[in-house]
């Protein structure tokens, strides 16, 4: 049965050009080398830059896994041709466990609450010490990453097995796994964002912050998915049975999450602006006074207004050139957002901040890692879920 279905999908496994993995690997090596250089020159700045890129990788990896789980839980039909690409991008997740280790060594630079003399003078931090202490922090981070990796392995293993036997109960098993994963994901991404982003400003708190990172993660994952699937489709790596309607849906999702991010970001901003309490407003005054005003205003334009206007017309969601442009824009802006979340805290933690090109060494490595992993996965596995029972329906998908 799977072999017969193979004929109908019109998918033929093609190898990516050899240079693809090489480009990824060389970017990775160059990025890491430059990053180490930047660490030698300015250790504190390098730690912050590393965290920025780490957040960027986390959003792409965990967001892609969320898209896979979302497809299973919602019973979505249109997204089946792109699911494997999202699975490949989520293969970053297990590597995060290795990538997080340098951050544990740089924690002194990132978090003021790791300094005992600061905590000794600060009543609020003393009360928070039950949660914000180094052993518990490290355990939390490792457990969260292990949980994510576990679900990544379980879900993708079932999905890949289906390529060979096309069994229906693999899909129903994945639906159950995905439901559990989404529940765990909702808690873990909140805890993760509280730990690694919010606790840099340990007095500040915002309960919606996890949702902010979630909106970012899904947004950028859709952009990465759109960019790669449009390019792969144009180069003939996917089946030509995919219609414009499928790509239209991808564009609509990018558009929807552009608005969702604006909604969440504004909700957080407006309440804290209105309340104007010292421990809450500090987060925004850090990002408004000093060199950050232009960055903050630029984020509103680049993160919301530009993609909103690009993706609003119906035509732009079926035009491959515009879709690719919007996707690249979103990926760049997602790095910008991560930068905006992390870097202003340098001043807060007593370091001097001035704009420097050293901040852009680690993103080279991050992009290289994504390309390298994607190339390796394409070599190993099918780029298209040829055994999926929903394939017939996905080819008949209309808007």
């Amino acid at each position, binding site marked *: 049965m799977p072999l017969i279905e193979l004929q109908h999908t019109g998918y033929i496994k093609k190898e990516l050009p050899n240079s693809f993995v090489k480009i990824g690997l060389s970017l990775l090596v160059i990025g890491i080398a430059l990053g180490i250089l930047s660490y030698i020159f300015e250790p504190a700045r390098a730690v912050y830059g590393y965290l920025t890129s780490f957040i960027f990788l986390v959003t792409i990896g965990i967001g892609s896994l969320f898209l896979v789980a979302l497809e299973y839980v919602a019973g979505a039909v249109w997204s089946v041709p792109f699911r494997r690409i999202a699975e490949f991008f989520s293969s970053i997740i297990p590597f995060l466990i290795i990538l997080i280790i340098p951050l544990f060594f740089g924690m002194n630079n990132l978090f003021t609450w790791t300094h005992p003399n600061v905590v000794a003078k600060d009543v609020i931090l003393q009360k928070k010490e039950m949660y914000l202490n180094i052993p518990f922090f490290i355990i939390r981070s490792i457990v969260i990453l292990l949980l994510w990796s576990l679900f990544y392995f379980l879900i993708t293993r079932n999905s890949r097995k289906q390529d060979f036997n096309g069994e229906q109960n693999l899909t129903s098993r994945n639906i159950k796994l995905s439901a559990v994963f989404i529940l765990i994901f909702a808690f873990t991404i909140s805890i993760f964002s509280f730990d690694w982003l919010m606790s840099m400003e340990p007095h500040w708190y915002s309960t919606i912050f996890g949702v902010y990172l979630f909106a970012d993660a899904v947004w950028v994952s859709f952009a990465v998915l759109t960019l790669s699937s449009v390019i792969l489709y144009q180069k003939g790596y996917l089946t030509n049975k995919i219609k414009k309607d499928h790509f239209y849906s991808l564009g609509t999702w990018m558009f929807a999450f552009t608005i969702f991010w604006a909604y969440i970001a*504004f909700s957080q*901003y*407006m309440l804290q*602006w*209105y309340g*104007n309490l010292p421990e809450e407003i500090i987060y925004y005054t850090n990002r408004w006074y000093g060199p950050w005003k232009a960055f903050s205003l630029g984020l509103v334009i680049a993160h919301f207004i530009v993609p909103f206007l690009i993706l609003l017309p*119906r035509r732009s969601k079926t035009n491959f050139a515009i879709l690719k442009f919007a996707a690249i824009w979103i990926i760049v802006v997602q790095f910008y957002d991560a930068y905006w979340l992390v870097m202003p805290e340098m001043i807060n933690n007593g370091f001097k901040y001035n704009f420097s090109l050293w901040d852009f060494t680690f993103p080279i490595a991050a992009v290289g890692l994504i390309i390298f992993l994607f190339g390796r996965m394409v070599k190993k596995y099918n780029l298209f879920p040829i055994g999926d029972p929903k394939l017939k329906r996905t080819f008949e*998908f*209309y*808007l």
Partner: protein
Amino acid sequence: MSNNQKQLYAIGALFDSPDKIIYAANKIREAGFVNYDVNTPYPIHGMDKAMGLKSSKIGYVTLFAGFFGASFILSFMWWTLSVSYPLVIGGKPYFPLPAFVPITFEFTVLSAVVSTAIALIAVAFNFPYNSHPLHDSYYMKNVSSDKFGIVIEAIDEKFKKEDTENLLKSLGAYFTELIYKPEEKTFKIFEPKFLAFLLIIALITSGSTYVTLNKLMYMPPFDFMLHQNRGNAQAKSNFFYNTREMRNPVKGTVAQGYIPYPFNATDSTEYFADPLLPTMEVLRLGQKKFLTFCSPCHGNYADGNSRLQGQFPPGPTLHSQQVINYSDGKIYNIITNGQNVMPSYARQINSNERWAIINYIRVLQRAQNPKPEDFSAIKEIKKENDDNASN
């Protein structure tokens, strides 16, 4: 339309699955029909393509209503809260944009949605009509629950009653219905029954509101501070012999802080000395009181530049040699008892304030006739201020 020959509007055909309706819509379009429509209980993917529909123009209504709503409510809030009646709310600026964003968003959505719905009704029912021939047909009852229907209108060029019915049946319709236009009816606006109905409704609403608010839900107002065991000013008393609640003070009573001044206008008071020192505080008090009570007649600078515009004899200038020569005690007496047409200000200005005013008048007089040492003093003060500013 009184004859019993009704005008045919359309033929409706019912199908029982979405696949069949897509197939049928395809065939109808290929057969060259233009004036036909498909009704389904839920949106069916691929129907636009099957019917060859282009994107709807109704979106422009939504777009412009949305733009209108956003700009209207923003300018409304700007005008009411920042221009017409500026209010400080929660220490925010007069135009707090973040606070206006949710309202702008909601109003944009509201106006866009409501005008889209109105536009749809106007287009579909062919404004100004408020009904459609398909209403109350067997066809409509079914497509709005669980069946799928195609309706071909009689005005279509390809429409032939029998042929079209057969075509629909051959495409898999399990039922076809001839739908006629309803008889045209006119309704008078000033129907007596309708007016009476309106009147009754108005009476019932206003009456029931009155009864509910004033009788059923009536609560005594917050008045327990009004009725206390005490005498009110200007009130009648049954206790005192002169039937007044108000009592005269005991003879010889003096109010706290009141210093008796037993002198008349004709008494000689030149020897009274000013008890206050001309400190900044005293001068400020004197200036305030002078501007309130003296300046209307004597002018803001005591130069007799009256604001009364001839309605009252203007006050004389206080810079005349005569007034400069007056002693402080004399001016005090004039303020207290009045002089010529000037009435007594004893009730408006207390003793302390009178002395402060006199201090201030002396300052004004000195300013009109400065001495050489005043200029050097001013220069010194200026220099001091500049030094302070530069530091």
